[in-house]
C-alpha cells in the first residue's frame, strides 16, 4: 500500500516535471511596445534625432512607430512595405528590405535574440572561440548565397548578446552593433542601448569614414492589453 502511494507520487512528480518545458513554451509572447530614441551622426557631420514609441505585434505582423520628433508621424511596416502617415493621411509608401519578423522585436519575443535570429535563418554556426569574457561565433551564409552575403560574427557575454558584426562577401567589416544593458518585462530581455558603427562603402568599392548611431529603449511592455488600434494600425488608402 505504502509502496503504491510512493510510486503514484513519483509518477505524478515525473509527469509534472515532463510538462514543465511545455508550460514555459505555452507562455506566448505576442506583442511589445517601448519608447525609443535614435541618435545618428554620419560621416559628413550631419546629425538626426528620432523619438517615439514602437509597437510590434506578431499576430498582425506589423511594426508601428509613433514618431513624435523630428515631426509627428506614424510609420507602419508590413511585409516589406514602409508606410508614412501624417495627420491620418498616407503621404509616402516605399519598399524596405525588412520583414517585421526579422527584427530584434520578433527575436526578443520568440527568445531568439541571443543569436540575433540566425539560428532560424540561412546562416550556419561556424567557428566558436572564447576570448576574454566573450564567446564569439562566426556564422556563415548558405553556400549558394556566399556571393551576396558575408559572414556574421556574434559575441555573447554572460550568456547574453553583446555584439554583432556584419561582413561583406569580400570580408570587409560593414557594420557592428554593441548591446548594453537589458530591459526585462513579461519574461523577455530586450537591449536598453544599441550602439551601431557603420563603415560605408563608396560606389568605387572603397571604405572611408564611419557613421555612428545610438538607439535606446525604455518603458518596455510585453503582452499589454489595449491600444489594439495602434498595434494593428490601419494603413489609410491615401
Amino acid at each position, binding site marked *: 500500500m505504502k509502496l503504491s502511494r510512493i510510486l503514484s507520487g513519483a509518477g505524478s512528480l515525473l509527469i509534472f516535471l515532463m510538462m514543465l518545458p511545455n508550460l514555459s513554451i505555452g507562455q506566448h509572447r505576442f506583442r511589445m511596445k517601448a519608447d525609443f530614441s535614435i541618435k545618428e551622426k554620419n560621416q559628413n557631420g*550631419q*546629425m*538626426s534625432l528620432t*523619438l517615439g514609441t514602437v509597437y510590434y505585434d506578431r499576430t498582425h505582423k506589423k511594426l508601428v512607430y509613433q514618431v513624435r*520628433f523630428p515631426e509627428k508621424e506614424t510609420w507602419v511596416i508590413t511585409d516589406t512595405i514602409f508606410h508614412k502617415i501624417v495627420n491620418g493621411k498616407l503621404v509616402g509608401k516605399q519598399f524596405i528590405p*525588412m520583414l517585421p519578423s526579422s527584427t530584434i522585436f520578433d527575436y526578443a519575443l520568440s527568445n531568439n535574440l541571443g543569436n540575433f535570429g*540566425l539560428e532560424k535563418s*540561412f546562416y550556419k554556426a561556424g567557428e566558436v572561440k572564447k576570448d576574454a569574457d*566573450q564567446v564569439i561565433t562566426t556564422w556563415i551564409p548558405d553556400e549558394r548565397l556566399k556571393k551576396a552575403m558575408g559572414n556574421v560574427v556574434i559575441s555573447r557575454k554572460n550568456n547574453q548578446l553583446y555584439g554583432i558584426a556584419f561582413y561583406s562577401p569580400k570580408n570587409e567589416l560593414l557594420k557592428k552593433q554593441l548591446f548594453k544593458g537589458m530591459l526585462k518585462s513579461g519574461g523577455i530581455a530586450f537591449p536598453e542601448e544599441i550602439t551601431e558603427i557603420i563603415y560605408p562603402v563608396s560606389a568605387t568599392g572603397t571604405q572611408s569614414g564611419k557613421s555612428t548611431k545610438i538607439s535606446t529603449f525604455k518603458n518596455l511592455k510585453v503582452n499589454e492589453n489595449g491600444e489594439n488600434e495602434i498595434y494593428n494600425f490601419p494603413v489609410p488608402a491615401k
Partner: protein
Amino acid sequence: MIKKVLFSAVLAVACNFGFANTNAELFQVDEQEINAEFAQLNELEQFVNANEGVTLSEMGTDNPLTANVVNSGDVLGTLSTMGEPPLGIPSFLWGFCFNVAGVALVYFVADDRDETKKAFIGCAVSGGLYLLWWVFWVLVAGNAFLFF
C-alpha cells in the same frame, strides 16, 4: 633546428595577435569619444523631453541645439539597427531566385504559410518567365532561323 623553433614561436605569436584584432577587440568602442560626439544630440533629446510636443520645424534653424540636425527622411538608415536587411530578404525573391530550393528553404526556416506562399509565387513567376524565354527562343527564333 633552433631557427625552426624560433620561427614557429614567432609565427604563433603573430597569429595570436591577428586573432585578438578580429575577436574581442572587434566589439570594443571608445565610449568617451562617442559621448563627446553625441553631446549635442543628448542635450537636444533632453530639451525635447522637457518640452512635450515640440518638433524640429518648430524649433527653427537658428537654435544652437539644432545646428547640423536634419530630418533626413532616410527611414531605412534610421531603422537599420532594428533588423538586418540581408536576413529579411522577401520570400518572393527566395522563390524567384532559387526556385524550388528557395521555396523549400522558406518553408522549413520561416515555418510560415503566408511567407511560403509568397516564395511559391516568386518561383511560379520565375518559371513563367523562363517558359516565355524558351518559347521565344526555341519556337519563334528557332523557326525563323530555319527560313534562312
